[in-house]
């Protein structure tokens, strides 16, 4: 099936020269179905989509995998750790029993910790992306459509949020918030830390989407259908979310799909700096932070988590790119 529109695929001097000529078979299809068809035809996107799905299933099924693998993420195998605190054997203690070897010092199994880390990472990234996108949409639409002082205020807030050094604030907010909600003897539950991280991402991350949506809304604001809705006395809410929003879903979906890998990286970075998830909760960033200093003596410890997170982010990025191409064929490809 060759379903993509031929004309708009061209770029350079040809772009406008080649006529847009949809095939008869495509007539009457909704844009969503068209995009889906284009996505299906994009092999890279499909493969990365499957990899992505594989990772997601792996993360969701972590307890099941633990059952099958027979090792818990907290179990220590210190009898397999040498007195220099590195795992005994070759390449970080890789064996039939410990597929990715063991952590130095504590001797926990890296494979099962990565599986659980995947779960944490994906959950945080998806929630953060959802929240920031939602926040960005609302503020972007309001700002772009209403203009005037509201736009001025929101735009300034965006500038302000961008001027705050994120990591420093994250570093300060995490203990402040946890101290406010939990007593000194309470263990900070993992979900709470995760919640705070998502909140932090939302607090600082909505600006990108808001800017994008604002720009789109400004260009849509004067279009006929909006004028028509306005003329027919439609309420503000109706215009904003019934008229404008449906026309924005493509860029929003793309920015969402590319935000997820961004937050995977961001989560790992926060945890890398000790702000986010902390040991003993399995997490990519924590693992890489620890493994970095073993780069020389136990490179396997760095390589396994590093490669997994790389593949994960790559799969999401490739899929996001594919989605963008499918939704907006005029863009990069």
């Amino acid at each position, binding site marked *: 099936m060759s379903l993509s529109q031929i004309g708009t695929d061209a770029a350079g001097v040809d772009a406008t020269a080649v006529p847009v000529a949809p095939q008869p078979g495509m007539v009457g299809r909704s844009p969503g179905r068209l995009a889906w068809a284009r996505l299906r035809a994009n092999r*890279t996107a499909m493969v990365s989509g499957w990899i992505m799905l594989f990772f997601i299933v792996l993360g969701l099924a972590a307890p099941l995998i633990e059952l099958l693998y027979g090792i818990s993420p*907290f179990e*220590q195998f*210190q009898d397999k*750790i*040498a*007195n*220099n*605190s*590195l*795992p*005994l*054997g*070759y*390449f*970080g*203690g890789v064996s039939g029993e410990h597929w990715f070897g063991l952590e130095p*010092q*504590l*001797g926990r199994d890296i494979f099962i910790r990565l599986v659980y880390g995947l779960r944490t990472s994906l959950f945080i990234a998806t929630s953060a992306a959802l929240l920031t996108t939602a926040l960005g949409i609302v503020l972007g639409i309001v700002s772009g459509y209403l203009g005037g002082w509201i736009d001025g205020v929101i735009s300034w807030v965006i500038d302000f949020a961008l001027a705050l050094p994120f990591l420093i604030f994250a570093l300060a907010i995490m*203990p402040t918030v946890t101290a406010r909600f939990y*007593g*000194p*003897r*309470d*263990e*900070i539950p993992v979900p709470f830390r995760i919640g705070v991280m998502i909140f932090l991402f939302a607090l600082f991350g909505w600006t990108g989407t808001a800017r994008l949506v604002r720009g789109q809304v400004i260009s849509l604001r004067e279009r006929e259908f909006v004028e028509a809705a306005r003329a027919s006395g439609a309420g503000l809410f109706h215009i904003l979310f019934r008229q404008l929003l449906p026309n924005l879903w493509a860029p929003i979906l793309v920015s969402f799909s590319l935000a997820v890998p961004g937050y995977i990286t961001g989560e790992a970075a926060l945890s890398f700096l*000790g702000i986010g998830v*902390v*040991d*003993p909760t399995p997490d990519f960033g924590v693992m890489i*932070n*620890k493994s970095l*200093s*073993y*780069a*020389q*003596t*136990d*490179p*396997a410890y760095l*390589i396994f988590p590093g*490669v997994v997170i790389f593949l994960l982010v*790559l799969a999401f990025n490739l899929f996001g790119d594919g989605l963008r191409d499918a939704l907006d064929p005029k863009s990069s490809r």
Partner: protein
Amino acid sequence: MRSRAILAAGGVLALTVALGACSENKNTDSDVDTDRVASGAIATDPKDSMGPAKAVEGAAKGGTFTVIRQTKISHMDPQRVYSFVGLNTAPLYARFLTTWKDDGKGNVTLVGDLAETPGVNVNKDCKVWEFKIKDGVKFEDGSAITSKEVAYGIARSFDPDLAGGPTYIQEWLANDAAFDTKWDFKANKTSLPPGLTTPDAKTLRFEFAKPHCDLPFAASLPATAPLPPAKDTGVELDNKPFSSGPYKLVKNTVGVEMLFERNEHWDANTDPVRNAYPDKFVYKFGPNAEAQTNRLIADGAEDQATLGWNGVDSSLVAKVAGDAGLMGRTLREPTPSAWRLSINTQRVPDLSVRQALNYAIDRSGMVKAAGGDLKVAPLTTLMPPSTLGFKKFDAYPADIEKAKSTLAGKTPELVLVIGDDSGAQELGTQVKNDLEKAGFKITIKVIPADSKLDETKKKDNPWDLYLDSWAADWPSGAALLPVLFDGRTIKAEGNSNTSYINNDAINAEFDRVLALDPAAQAPEWAKLDERIMKELAPAVPLYADVMFVMHGSKVGGVYIDSIFGYPAFTRAFVKQ
């Protein structure tokens, strides 16, 4: 095609995988002498306190000795020096009333530095002490050092602006922990604190309200360094101290580099411990332990006369240990820094629970979690082996079954507080897993590492267990056991007795031993250590840090000092 780039990246990974996989990691024997026993004495013969210091075999004069360290030294003003790096750097540019002759293997002798002897206990009641200043000792400008300048140095340590240094002598003179309210230095710059007098230019006299037999020890700290009042620049002295030692600080780019050159007015014949072989000492700040170690492994031309202060990074221990050539350029000695799992006895009053905690901890796992046996040495006593009179014992040999039976079916729920620094988290996990095997229910509470330090020092802190370390200021049980376990000193905050143990019988023992002659005290402290562990079990001794430092191929004469457990430079030289 897109996958080609990914393949290429994969190729690089495969390469490194291959590199990493080519060696098998095996157990190796570390040769740290963890069982060495310290011996010590106080020199009574003035000859022991005279120079020149005994020559070091193979040493030659000249060259530039470099020390690299991650962060700057917090204070250089001798009255404010209290960090290990400061304590071991100060001898380069300052001299004190007393100092230690140290073979680097735990055998120490306290001798006079500026003083002719390590003090005279005038009435044998430890209340009145006299020190006679040597002849021929001079400042960097050639002026003579007299008892006046030493007294002025001690006086200015009362200035609250100049905080940071040790407070023993001030508290003893003022007979009050809040010594600076008893005597205001700023208002009385021309006088001396109560109890401190200089009958003549050679004599310094201390008169205390209570006996303080440890004064000769306390006088070895840099706070007794002399300073002419005219040279007192207040807080600025931190950047440019006025030298009384063999070197003077000639260039100080704060936080980046310090350059010491010879003080021509220093006379080797007056100095019993400093050989002062190199012409220059340079301190460079910035690289972390890992970077330092890597540079020293490489042994590049500029690093051959260099020592990495922060030690062999734990991540590189395996690499260094596996290479005999590299091991030849390391120093590895147990240090007096002793780690323990403190039990807040206010919250865990049940002795059997505390004993069960002791049985449950498996030190071999702790050692691995703490970075291996070249980083730490297991410890079953409260006092580390470097303490004078140390005697090894293990009151509670690790045994999970014994721990369970001691608990007798109880499942105590305890909160362990740890700092958020990465090393602590591994230890916390290790402790939790060990204890839970024995039936405890452990909650780990992570708080910022720095606030953990002072929060646990508050009497009403809400936690049950915490990791604590203590390094005594001199190798006497007196500087450890009463400080950590005398319940009468417990205050609202700022406690060192973080177990908050208060036992009358033990307290009485402290008083008894403290009144003994320092030499007689040593075996008594060892006995008391065992008694505290058996009767009170206020903590679980875990391990003592091992100092494992590396230097370049042209470094000689450096040793790990027996008092603080850090590299000492008094005998350092650059191989020519």
